[in-house]
């Protein structure tokens, strides 16, 4: 009975959805294509090694991030000990250090004639200490680098599920005669388990998609193999075949994450919620707790940043102001551009879902947010080959020129990768804003647009800030997409550091690495209040 209007809200979700489809379709089609000779060679020799390496790194990282993340979350949520308030927020600073930069600092410290060697030399006089210093590279190096930079996902989400538990539950356990240990085992841990699984799944997806760290340590995993077959062997068919394996592994964790997220909703606080009373630790137990957190903070943040600072001080000639300014301008402008695009798209879609209540739009959006699952390498490679396919089909080069090796292509790829972060960030704010408030505003004489400006925007300001910060940090740290899709000669902190490091010029990588960490740390500190609530 009412005239049907085109809902413009669909367009942004539909647009992103199309780009999410591209990698899946391209890889799907490639499965039915003839494989190259190189792939057959690989299949006989290395494919299983790649998969095994990927899984080895994954297992190591999951074990360590579980210990670091859950341990730190447990201590800071339930106990008070010297430094506990400080560690609660300071630990998230490790989010500023990407794992590949962590890898550079590990090498600088433990490497041949590295900083540890110089330090021992300085302390005890010259000797051949390098024979005594353990080598921390290869698999071990990759696992450590990733664990220290990724444990924060487990920490934040576990902490959120710990602190939202009600003291009433703990008290109920006590009344039933449970000891502290039993209360943890039977009540606290089981109800935080879905949260922990969500955190670990996110870690798993990041670790499987990692490119910078494993490539630096020369560990052949699926991501490096995809990159190599694309860049070095120019063999796109092989890249797709390998991508298939990678996507399958990632999807398992994606499924796990989704399942656990919906389960964890059951454990959210209801009426009568009472905040946990923290227990004051004394004596040795306090010392253990402080030591654990201090070690974690030192290893995950102080260690890499001090290494990089040391380089900067030791080799001031490698710091070129003009170059750093150019990098800052490049990085900051791409960050601002993408963040703005994402926020506009996310607002448009969320607002559309709110007022149209369309199931179709919901379904399209749910699909489009799954872009974060697709590893950056695959996203970039498939996007490029799709563009050349379309250009050939249209028999014109402008599409290729417009999107590949251009800022536009880069921004689109970032948007696909980080769309879920933006959508869900704004969605969680909107969920707290009762729809009756919209009706009240209309009745008080405000139009839809007026309501958006006067009610939605001011209310969602914290969410907006949090999303802007998180997206900015992610883009700052993002490596493979930028490396593959950036315009010629366009460098960001991440790519510049990677380029130097891959040419064994680690001291030169110090400048961009330091700037990257400083920028990320500023963004983290600006939004730490909201980050600590869990995302």
């Amino acid at each position, binding site marked *: *009975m*009412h005239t049907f209007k085109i809902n413009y809200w669909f367009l942004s979700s539909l647009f992103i959805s199309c780009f999410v489809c591209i990698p899946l379709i391209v890889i799907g089609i490639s499965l039915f294509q003839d494989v190259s000779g190189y792939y057959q060679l690989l299949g006989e020799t290395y494919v299983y090694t790649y998969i095994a390496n990927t899984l080895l790194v994954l297992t190591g990282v999951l074990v360590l991030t579980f210990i670091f993340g859950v341990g730190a979350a447990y201590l800071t949520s339930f106990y008070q000990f010297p430094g506990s308030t400080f560690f609660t927020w300071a630990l998230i600073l490790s989010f500023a250090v990407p794992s590949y930069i962590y890898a550079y600092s590990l090498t600088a410290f433990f490497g041949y004639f590295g900083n540890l060697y110089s330090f021992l030399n300085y302390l005890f006089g010259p000797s051949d200490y390098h024979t005594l210093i353990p080598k921390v590279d290869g698999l071990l190096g990759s696992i450590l680098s990733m664990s220290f930079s990724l444990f924060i996902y487990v920490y934040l989400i576990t902490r959120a599920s710990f602190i939202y538990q009600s003291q009433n539950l703990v008290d109920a356990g006590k009344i039933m005669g449970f000891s502290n240990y039993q209360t943890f085992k039977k009540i606290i841990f089981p109800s935080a388990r879905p949260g922990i699984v969500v955190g670990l799944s996110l870690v798993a997806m990041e670790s499987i998609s990692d490119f910078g760290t494993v490539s630096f340590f020369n560990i052949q995993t699926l991501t490096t193999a995809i990159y190599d077959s694309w860049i070095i062997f120019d063999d796109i068919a092989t890249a797709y075949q390998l991508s298939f394996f990678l996507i399958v592994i990632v999807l398992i964790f994606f499924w796990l994450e989704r399942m656990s997220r919906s389960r964890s909703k059951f454990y959210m606080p209801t009426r009568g919620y009472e905040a946990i009373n923290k227990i004051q630790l004394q004596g040795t137990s306090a010392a253990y707790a402080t030591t654990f957190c201090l070690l974690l903070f030192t290893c995950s943040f102080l260690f890499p940043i001090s290494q990089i600072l040391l380089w900067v001080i030791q080799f001031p000639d490698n710091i070129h102001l003009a170059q750093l300014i150019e990098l800052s301008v490049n990085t900051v402008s791409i960050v601002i551009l993408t963040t703005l695009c994402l926020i506009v798209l996310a607002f448009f879609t969320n607002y559309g879902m709110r007022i149209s209540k369309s199931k179709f739009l919901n379904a399209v959006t749910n699909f489009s947010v799954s872009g974060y699952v697709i590893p950056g390498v695959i996203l970039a490679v498939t996007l490029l080959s799709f563009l050349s396919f379309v250009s050939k089909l249209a028999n014109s080069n402008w599409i290729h020129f417009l999107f590949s090796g251009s800022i536009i292509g880069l921004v689109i790829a970032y948007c696909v990768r980080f769309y879920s972060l933006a959508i869900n960030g704004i969605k969680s704010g909107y969920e707290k*804003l*009762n729809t*009756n*408030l*919209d*009706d*009240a*505003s*209309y*009745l*008080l*004489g*405000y*139009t839809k647009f*007026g309501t958006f400006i*006067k*009610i939605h925007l*001011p*209310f969602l300001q914290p969410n907006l800030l949090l999303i802007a910060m998180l997206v900015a940090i992610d883009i700052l740290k993002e490596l493979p997409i930028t490396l593959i899709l950036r315009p010629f000669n366009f460098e960001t902190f991440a790519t510049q550091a990677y380029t130097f490091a891959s040419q064994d010029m680690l001291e030169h990588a110090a400048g961009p690495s330091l700037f990257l960490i400083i920028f990320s740390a500023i963004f983290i500190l600006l939004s730490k209040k909201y980050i600590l609530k869990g995302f």
Partner: protein
Amino acid sequence: MAHYFEFNNVSYSKNNEHILTNVSFSIPRQGDTVAILGPSGIGKTTILKCISGVRKIDQGTIQLKNKILHDSHTYIDPEQRNIALSFQDNALFPHYTVEENIRFGIQKSLFCSKNKNGPLKYSMEDLLELFFVPELKNKYPHEISTGQAQRVGLVRSIIHNPDLLLLDEPFANLDQNLKDKAQKNLKEILKSTGITTILVTHDKYEAFYLSDYCGILLQGGIVQFDSPYNIHHIPNSKEVVEFFNRGVLIPVEVVSDDTLFNKDLGEIKGKLVKKYEKGEQVNLLIQPEDLEHDDSSTLKFEVIDKKFRGTNLIYTLQTPSALQLPVFVHSHHEHLHAEQEKFGIKQPIFIDHLVCF
């Protein structure tokens, strides 16, 4: 002549579930207050939302001051209707203070062309005072109680001086004492400003006190629309009787135009509301105030239950044929009757309106 407000054959469904089906009622004159009474979940709030325009109806017509607000061809946006709604859950904007929340409404309504009524003769301060929340101006919604927030929401909607004011359970979260005072002040404001109002409530005393007309909304739509007096004394169907849950139906035989007969009570005289044939078997509604107590009467029944209501007592009496009759007695009645004691009913029995079904 067309009525001031009309709600004609309106149907509304959500997720394929029919919430309103062909519901109709109207407000004859400007300045009247209409109360919609009904059980929970029947669609009372939905009616208000449809009138305000925040829900779009499937069919029917909504018309205010001879102007169509919503029908198959026309739909006027809520912000263009000059209708104010006070939400049951108050819907205060969480990021604005109480004062900002109230001003948010005034800014738009008084300075835009749609409102020809001019400013209300009460200021914001007056209204806050009249609803007993004068000290809350600078507080945020999360700093005040639900009942206070609801009254702030009420002030925000009244201050518009709208063409039509919609109130959804305005005093649901107040204690009885404050509720009585707030109702008195609301009535005074509505009468002195002449704001036409539709009130939704499940509290019949609130409805009877505030309204000129009451509509009873049950499963089949508005089943009775009448003055509070008639709604109470002359309910038009068994469903309305059941909804109020006050009184019982007893079998009687029609003896003449003004006389009925029941084998336990004997002759019952009064004015029959509807015409029946002589000898017809019907059910008569007996409400607690219909029968009078008389200790000296020979017509006595056994007391099986007694409810003390402060100002009065309601006895339940059992007749030989197992009818259970409620009888209202002033609580200062000189002596109390225990359960299982005999209790006299004044004869001859005379009831003003004989309501039969």
